[in-house]
């Protein structure tokens, strides 16, 4: 039976730098692959609605008549399926997350 | 092909004796699952011994027919049977621990067979 097996580790971590960092003062580093948030190059979109139909979380709303593409960021699960399916490849996955928010609002993109 | 899976179709009346045979030969109960098909409900009893997978399949045409519970042979079956009772409305006879429809507290009763359709 040993006691204080943890003691050495506790003492070394007492002197070491913290394992966490002071977010948001120190920004988080994202990887190239990180699935962060979906963006759209709206001028290339053909409003086919494929992303809306296939979205597992039903976060996307495409209105062909108004030439509008809407996404509910709080519903989106960042799976990237829409990016994979988009026939004109106007959707892309950014490796940074969308900003935090207090209200539930869809983000709308319209053709300029 | 990862593994051979033997599926044996049996009658409801043979279920208990077949299950007891599996119990005596040292199989373990892997799962019991129910499938709703247009014409009937299928209940799969899966057994496994040293990675040899065997599946018994019974067909239930009339929901009023009581299926004998295997939970008196494999005690752990009570979870699966209560689950199937709550989701599909299948009646089981003599479950070792019968929740009487209170196993899943879902707002929709018989969620997997909502109209309680008699096939």
């Amino acid at each position, binding site marked *: 039976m040993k006691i204080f097996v943890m003691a050495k580790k506790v003492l070394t971590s007492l002197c070491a730098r913290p394992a966490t960092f002071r977010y948001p003062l120190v920004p988080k580093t994202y990887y190239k692959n990180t699935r962060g948030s979906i963006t759209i190059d709206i001028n290339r979109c053909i409003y086919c609605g494929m992303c809306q139909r296939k979205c597992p979380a039903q976060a996307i709303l495409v209105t062909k008549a108004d030439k509008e593409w809407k996404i509910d960021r709080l519903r989106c699960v960042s799976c990237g399926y829409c990016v994979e399916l988009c026939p004109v490849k106007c959707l892309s996955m950014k490796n940074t997350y969308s900003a935090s928010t207090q209200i539930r609002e869809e983000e709308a993109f319209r053709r300029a | 092909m*990862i593994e051979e899976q033997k599926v044996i179709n049996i009658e409801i009346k043979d279920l208990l004796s077949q299950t007891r045979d599996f119990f005596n030969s040292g199989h373990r109960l892997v799962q019991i699952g129910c499938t709703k098909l247009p014409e009937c409900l299928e209940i799969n009893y899966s057994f496994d011994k040293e990675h040899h997978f065997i599946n018994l399949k019974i067909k239930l045409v009339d929901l009023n027919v009581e299926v004998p519970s295997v939970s008196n042979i494999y005690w*752990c079956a009570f979870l699966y049977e209560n689950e199937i009772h709550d989701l599909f409305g299948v009646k089981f006879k003599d479950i070792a621990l019968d929740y009487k429809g209170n196993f*899943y507290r879902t707002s929709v009763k018989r969620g997997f067979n909502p109209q309680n359709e008699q096939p």
Partner: protein
Amino acid sequence: MNSPKRTIIPFGPQHPVLPEPIHLDLVVEDEKVIEAIPSLGFIHRGLERLVEKRDFIDFVYVAERICGICSFIHGLTYCIAIEEIMQIEVPKRANYLRLIWSELSRIHSHLLWLGLMADGFGFEALFMHTWRLREKILDIIEETTGGRIIFGSAKIGGVRKDISSEKLAQILEKLKNYAQEIREITNVFINDSSVKHRLVGVGVLSKEDAYILGAVGPTLRASGVGLDTRKLGYAAYKEIDFEPIIETAGDSYSRCLVRIREIFQSIEIIKQAAGKIEPGAIEVKVTGTPNGEFFARTEQPRGEVIYYAKADGSRFLQRLRVRTPTFANVPAMVKLLPGCQLADVPILVLTIDPCISCTER
């Protein structure tokens, strides 16, 4: 002498050691538990039925989100079920990548469990150190797949992302260093007297009981039964040399030991896989629709998971049934509890590694 009075103490659905809702009615005599009756179904989501409304190819995303910890293996098992029905031959490289990600998810899940366990018996510092190490594994996962816990890299016919050989070498190098650090922390679980005091001899599950109650995964292997679904040889496991890890005591301590040893085994398996992986395609094109049925079985960190898929040749499956490891372990947990002290109940519930969101799929 009068027999002591029996009381029923409700445990859960909200309990400090359990982030997820499971309810137990504990019949106690003084401090001793006589009987335990479980209740589930507080958060039943009916995901299995969603399969009737979602295309079978899209459903991988839903399958993967059944659970947040064993996510990749859920997606993988669904893919295997469909691939077996459609008789798709998955490329060799994809199989190896699937194996590597499965093992990474096993390491992170076991580290998570060790942390929760330490938290459960009140060893806060140990909990934080375990999770600090888990974070490093999550970084590897994020770097290779893009998600921290939802990998999103399994797809029917292969995998979505590739790991380059340089990256693989880096991962191996990292894992070698982490193994050292993990060893330091797990030694506390293995040797420390205060930890042992809470775990040794508590909640003994005999070999026969464990087997016949249908227990799976580490719960079963800690009781001396060497069943490991990985031995079926799905993904690339048939080309990997490993033996299921077995402990024989069947108490909480051996369940802890099995998981600790599995962490190092997983690192070893990844090392083997990295040596055997060959360049090649990572996916095949999937055409047609499934028609048939299959029971796909894989080994999750918590034990064997079963996906039963039945299809009739349309884009929508007729039935998908998921039997998760926790569901199979609940009877074992119920049998563990009688005879233990009330204060040990949280620990015993934790030792089967309950994942209620899996169970309430």
